[in-house]
């Protein structure tokens, strides 16, 4: 009896330890959420929600400061959309090729190259972009300066490739071979089979890949800060622009007072964007589970 209760006690203690460790993660999320909301709301109240979200001018240290973040919001949306427009087709076709057609050895080489691409720190992307891409854009398009929305879009497009390729590949590889065999037996060519059978069967997985890409692109700060020029302009392809992320990181170091509070409010807006993307992601993941 005594042994049994001792055993139970140990069980309970271990159970408790695991629970506490598990709660650390939840605690962190809660802490960040609460902190962002508490520190982000005051500035929005002071500036006014409409002026803050739809104001076209940002001049945080001016004698009469203006805190309009519409340029940042639009830049983040345009930048992410641009990265998706360029990155998704490349990533998608690469995934189809690797999952269905590529020879095994080539596939192995490609897969490790893609993993490597995923592991490169964002500051390195930014640095290469700054040294190669920015002067390149200036020369190719004959504009005064190459640090622009376009440069950021290209860098982001490359950065989201690994997650798009990997997740799409997993989804495509999970399509039951019987589906494809049936299609081939009916006389469809391999390419017809991939696009009419495999891809539709893996569509929720591919959608997940795209949403992951959106998440990575919208949250990236370091790399885009180094190539986008950081002036608070309304977005235009060859203009220097500032993203939601870079708006926070570029001014945080020296900020004070309402300016700092406004930066927290920008972080809050960014946080809401990410939440929205996560909700979308969950929606697709759920669809994936029910689909297969």
């Amino acid at each position: 009896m005594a042994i049994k209760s001792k055993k139970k006690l140990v069980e309970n203690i271990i159970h408790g330890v695991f629970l506490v460790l598990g709660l650390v993660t939840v605690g962190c999320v809660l802490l960040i959420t609460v902190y962002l909301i508490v520190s982000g709301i005051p500035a929005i109240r002071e500036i006014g929600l409409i002026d803050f979200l739809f104001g076209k001018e940002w001049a945080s240290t001016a004698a009469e400061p203006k805190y309009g973040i519409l340029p940042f919001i639009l830049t983040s949306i345009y930048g992410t959309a641009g990265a998706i427009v360029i990155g998704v087709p490349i990533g998608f076709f690469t995934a189809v090729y690797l999952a269905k057609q590529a020879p095994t050895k080539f596939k192995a080489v490609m897969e490790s190259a893609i993993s490597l691409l995923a592991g490169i720190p964002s500051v390195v992307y930014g640095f290469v972009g700054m040294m190669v891409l920015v002067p390149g854009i200036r020369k190719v398009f004959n504009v005064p300066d190459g640090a622009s929305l376009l440069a950021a879009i290209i860098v982001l497009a490359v950065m989201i490739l690994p997650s798009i390729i990997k997740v799409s590949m997993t989804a495509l590889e999970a399509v039951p071979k019987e589906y494809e065999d049936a299609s081939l037996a009916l006389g469809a060519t391999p390419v017809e089979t991939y696009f009419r059978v495999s891809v539709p069967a893996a569509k929720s997985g591919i959608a997940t890949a795209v949403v992951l890409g959106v998440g990575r692109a919208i949250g990236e700060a370091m790399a885009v800060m180094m190539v986008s020029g950081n002036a608070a302009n309304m977005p235009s392809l060859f203009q220097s622009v500032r993203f939601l992320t870079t708006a926070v990181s570029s001014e945080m170091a020296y900020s004070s007072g309402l300016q700092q509070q406004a930066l927290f409010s920008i972080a809050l807006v960014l946080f809401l964007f990410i939440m929205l993307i996560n909700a979308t992601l969950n929606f697709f993941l759920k669809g994936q589970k029910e689909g297969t």
Partner: protein
Amino acid sequence: MKNMKKLIYFVLIATLLLGALAGCAEKGGSVSTDGSTSMEKVIGALGEAFEKNNKNVTFTYNPTGSGSGIKAVLEGRCDIGLSSRSLKEAEKADGLIETVLAYDGIAIIVNPANSVADLTLEQIAEIYTGKITNWNEVGGKDEAIVLIGREAGSGTRDGFESITDTKDACQYRQELTSTGDVITTVASNPNAIGYASLASVKDSVKAISVGGVAPSEATVKDGSYAVQRPFVLVTKKDTKLSATAQKFFDYITSAAANQIITSSGVVPAK
């Protein structure tokens, strides 16, 4: 085998903990500084020399920016704040005092390929406010001028804009977050103009003269070079520095430190 592994982990963790405790118990005192990124070079050299002369003291410098440094002193998070601008009246009213350590010239830099070698302070102001947009208006090639600056709140930007009287009026093409970024960007674009701390200007860019006076230590010191600003040590009026911090403060403001300050490319105040 399993026990062995456990033992190793235990020993590792124990060492780490002991290490941490030992860190707390260290004798000799410490001095912490926090603030202006422009002052990194000079304060780093001074800190190094101070550590060398005094055994067992630790010197830390946190490159956060002038604003953050001033805030850190006010909140007691560091001993000495570093600011690359004079204190504002409001900051002095909060009980802070400033001691000028050195003067820093802000160099106006262009790409080495640019033929323009001299601008007046008015021309620089007109370029940055967008009144002059082409290099041919100031004697250069027929190319658009690309304005490179620093982010809002930067000490260098504040210094440049207050000296040229262009506050809140600069039409920056790029707002970069460090002196190094500004130099790299100007070095890679033949039509760019930027500003950076004189101490950090490298050969990859050309520092132009202002009103006929080339930026140099001598011209900054005698005041003939117009674009310059103070490097300030910020302390609290009614809080005494720790013994070590006071020693450091006395050392860097003494004549003994002048040589180090000079070799960091800025001009000592004394």
